């Protein structure tokens, strides 16, 4: 039996899962705080804009966004599989394509800043 090539999609999924676990709850909390007008002074618009304008900042934001999207796409693919949707290739293609398009859009927006 041939060994599987699934690590290609699983590694970014695992990395994305770690990113989601560490960053996303904080980002959601800070976004909510900002929406309610309680963002810490260091996280105001000007500072965050400067962070996104910096090369390293762009890379970090891109990493968080693309890995999170890839991880969510893979998780959703597994969920479909768990529920017995066995058109795995079609599901995987659609979901991974969405993650890839999302990542490209994130890169485009970041490069415009």
């Amino acid at each position, binding site marked *: *039996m*041939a*060994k*599987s*090539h*699934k*690590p*290609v999609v*699983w*590694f970014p999924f*695992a990395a994305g899962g770690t990113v989601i676990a560490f960053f996303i709850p904080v980002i959601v909390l800070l976004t909510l705080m900002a929406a309610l007008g309680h963002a810490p002074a260091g996280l105001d618009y000007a500072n965050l804009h400067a962070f996104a304008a910096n090369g390293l900042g762009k890379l970090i934001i891109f990493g968080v966004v693309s890995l999170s999207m890839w991880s969510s796409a893979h998780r959703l693919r*597994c*969920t479909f*599989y*768990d529920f*017995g949707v*066995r058109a795995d290739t079609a599901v995987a293609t659609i979901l991974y394509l969405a993650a890839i398009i999302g990542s490209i859009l994130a890169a485009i927006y970041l490069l415009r800043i």
Partner: protein
Amino acid sequence: MSNSPPRSHPPLAAPPEGAAASLGRPGGSSERTVTLEVLRYDPDTDSEARFQRYEVVCQEEWVVLDALNKVKADIDPTLNYRWSCHMAVCGSCGMMINGEPKLSCHAFLRNYEGVIRIEPLANFPIERDLVVAPDDFMDKLKRVKPYLIPKQEKPISEGEYKQTPAQLMKYRQYSMCINCMLCYAACPQYGLTPSFIGPAALTLAHRYNQDSRDGGRKERQEVAATHEGVWECTFVGACSEVCPAHVDPASALQQMKITSSIDWIVEHLIPGGKP
């Protein structure tokens, strides 16, 4: 055997706090009539399975297996089920109790209300009544080579293969499997994809891979690193929830995914790399 008297149980699962009090009978033993709804099926004579109800007078501290033994002894000797140790060690009395895979010797009646529905382990063919055919699991177990394959055979004169306590701890948890197959009955992937090697067999492969005396990982990867091996697992985690020996097969499979992924990178992305 089947008319054995009620016995005291080893402290495998402490009763929930206040369990006796909530039943209004603080302390002491008392009787209770329990209704069991047991799946009956004989492939030789029945065209389909049916449920049969038994009213059983049970002691409050009994487990489901005691109730089944009482049925077999006093009500219906034709009922078939497997059991042996009555202390969650042998792993032979696994069945679905109210839809959950459980060892019937470990399922206390006091934790159930109303009719208790008892079915054979899910995802396995029924041999008769509550007895399932474990052949598929046994075959998969063999395929992962669940035994020590020494890196180098050495003559007996050179003495034993020694191991430090730290080396033992790396695999000890995964060596506690009692082959009860509850994890297979709980795993939705095994239910949907019968070719999946499954939680217990892969966990045993991991157990030997982690053993400092073993050198057989490469051989086991031929089965474990395939689509039907760890990559069929979608980390539902039901295997770990139902495991009576707290082996946590889900963690073993996730660790195997990491090492298999590293193997893949070494094999495909590093020139001349061999896992």
